[in-house]
């Protein structure tokens, strides 16, 4: 087996894009600054030179139109990858995504599929203030007709794109902005494609089930290490897929630990963690030895100054405190 190699999350995304463009000529990348500029997070650097303007399309700042055009092109037999620079700008294209991409198949009585992949960066942590620090994955994970994934590791960033392109229905991929520079291990050989249906246990444990996704997974792992020195064994679950949710992995873990803490960078009210908490209560009520606890963003527009941004968003200390709470320590 060829030994694994370490690359950054950004390089993993670029490799995935390049592989898709090579493997299927129907694939093309469309979005703001994806071509000449090489991508707002430099994920498509070099692709314009290799594949040309026809398949690496810089668009005007018309999110609704180019996302709508992506839907139309998918209907027309292409396999578009539409990059919306960040979830913050996707609000302008919500109507196209929700009222057309997600709805068309069911509403047309099954006549049309929309094989479209939409990628967008998400999350706070770089002092971009309220309008550029949103974490709205739960809005998309709320909509039937969409699949929503959140690669937290380099391996998932490398492997999810191709699987998403193979899916006949629209898939939305959220890449947390804080992950692009992280380095990670990629297996040496074999097909890098990974599934987009199951959650993964990143760390086994017996006392508390710690659930997180995207940028929150590494914080959960750090918190688990700290809790271990405190004699508490945490099992860390990386959701990977936000719709459909993989209840089984969570429920099985809680049958062992009897306690759950969910880390979610969205605002608490109506968040994805609220949905997960409700499902745990419905399916594991008699297994619970403590109320399901959530660590979410404070319900405020994310502030600009670092100390306030940190105070507003989930941090390792808060996760450790939540773990101690459910352990009644």
């Amino acid at each position, binding site marked *: 087996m060829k030994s694994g190699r370490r690359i950054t999350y950004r390089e993993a995304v670029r490799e995935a894009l390049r592989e898709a463009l090579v493997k299927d000529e129907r694939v093309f990348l469309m979005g703001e600054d994806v071509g000449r500029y090489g991508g707002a997070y430099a994920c498509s650097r070099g692709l314009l030179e290799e594949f040309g303007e026809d398949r690496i399309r810089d668009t005007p700042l018309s999110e609704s139109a180019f996302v709508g055009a992506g839907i139309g092109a998918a209907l027309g037999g292409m396999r578009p990858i539409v990059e919306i620079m960040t979830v913050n700008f996707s609000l302008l294209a919500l109507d196209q995504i929700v009222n057309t991409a997600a709805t068309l198949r069911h509403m047309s009585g099954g006549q049309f599929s929309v094989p479209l992949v939409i990628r967008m960066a998400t999350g706070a942590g770089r002092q971009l203030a309220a309008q550029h620090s949103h974490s709205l994955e739960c809005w998309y994970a709320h909509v039937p007709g969409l699949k929503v994934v959140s690669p937290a590791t380099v391996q998932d960033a490398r492997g999810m794109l191709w699987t998403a392109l193979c899916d006949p229905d629209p898939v939305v991929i959220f890449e947390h902005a804080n992950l692009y520079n992280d380095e990670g291990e990629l297996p040496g050989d074999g097909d890098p494609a990974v599934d987009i249906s199951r959650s993964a246990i990143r760390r086994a444990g017996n006392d508390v089930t710690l659930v997180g996704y995207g940028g929150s997974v590494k914080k959960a792992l750090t918190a688990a290490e700290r809790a271990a020195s405190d004699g508490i064994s945490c099992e860390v679950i990386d959701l990977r897929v936000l719709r459909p949710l993989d209840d089984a992995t969570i429920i099985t873990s809680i049958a062992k630990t*009897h306690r759950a803490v969910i880390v979610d960078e969205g605002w608490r009210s109506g968040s994805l963690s609220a949905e997960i908490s409700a499902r745990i209560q*419905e399916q594991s*009520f*008699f*297994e*619970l*030895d*403590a109320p399901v606890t959530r660590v979410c963003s404070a319900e405020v527009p994310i502030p600009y100054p670092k100390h306030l941004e940190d105070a507003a968003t989930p941090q390792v200390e808060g996760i450790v405190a939540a773990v101690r709470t459910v352990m*009644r320590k």
Partner: protein
Amino acid sequence: MIEFRMPSLGADMEAGTLLEWLKKPGDAVKRGDIIAVVETQKAAMELEIFADGVIDRLLVKPGARVPVGDVMAIIRSSDTASVPAVKEPIRSTEPFGGLDASTVAPPSALPSSSAGQELRITPAARRRALELALEPASLLPGPDGIIGLQEVEAAGPGAMPTRAKGIANAEMRAAIAGAMARSNSEIPHYYVSSTIDVSRTMTWLAAENAKRSIADRLLYTVPMIRAVARALTKAPELNGRFIDGHFQPSTVVNLGIAIALRGGGLIAPAIIDVNRLSLDEIMQRLRDLVARVRGGRLRGSEMTEGTTTLTMLGEDTADWIMPIIYPPQTAIIGFGRVADRPWITEGRIISAKTVTVTVAGDHRVSDGRAAATFLNRLDQILQEPDTLC
């Protein structure tokens, strides 16, 4: 003749108030003509007629509130290509053809919170307490006032038994109490008893135990169980079950043994097919049953397979007992305490170890003669203890 009805003019319109008729009886009308004006919550709207003909009768006067679909006028149709009469509009609009509510599974019944003071116990702890036959109210909460798994495990038996799958005793006790009450009212009990000299059997047992290592000693209940099981084969009406109004005799003797519960109450799990077992096997089954009753780990089958039950008072307790049958069985055998009592043999009074055995029977199935047959057979067996092995 065509009925002109109040049309629905919008998704949320229920009725309209007639402002004025624009046609009068006898007027000719053709498709598309406006024949009336009505007031709706939005604005005044003109009503169109979709048929050619002549106004016959106007049924509603201006100012009247007319629900959508009600008839307002009658038109004599002159139109040859008669427009198919529009069937009665569906009054209640059934969205989605009656969406089946079960698609959203309602949560199962909410666990009842304990009465009295506010007992803060977690669901997992409540379930574990039941498994360990521990009364939640009797458990000591942690410093935070909550009873969690750790508090239950601390109160439970020393060794942390693995998550046993048996029936929780508390539930079982409640179920049996119910059965007893029913039995007492539904089953017509008759009672027959006789006193038996068990000296030979007790002497035989003492000799047998003296030969055995201490761990292999037999309790005196073991030879009694053996004798009862064999004697029952002579009185089949005492060994079976009464279900749906008729008696089902059993080919084997599954003898229920009444065992005392820690928190009070009797439970009678059965030793299955006693007559196939050796004395040592009976002793082992008995020891196992007692341990599992205490640990709350009985199997469902043990509680339901019994064909007759044996209940025995301890050494210095009482002389005889009138027990109640465990439904759906049809008899129960009660042993008083074994003790030295005066006894007549060959005209002389001697001291002998005797016991009074009472048969309670179900008069719908058997009568005293069956009980007497059983008791005589039991007596004979207990006089020849070496046949017990």
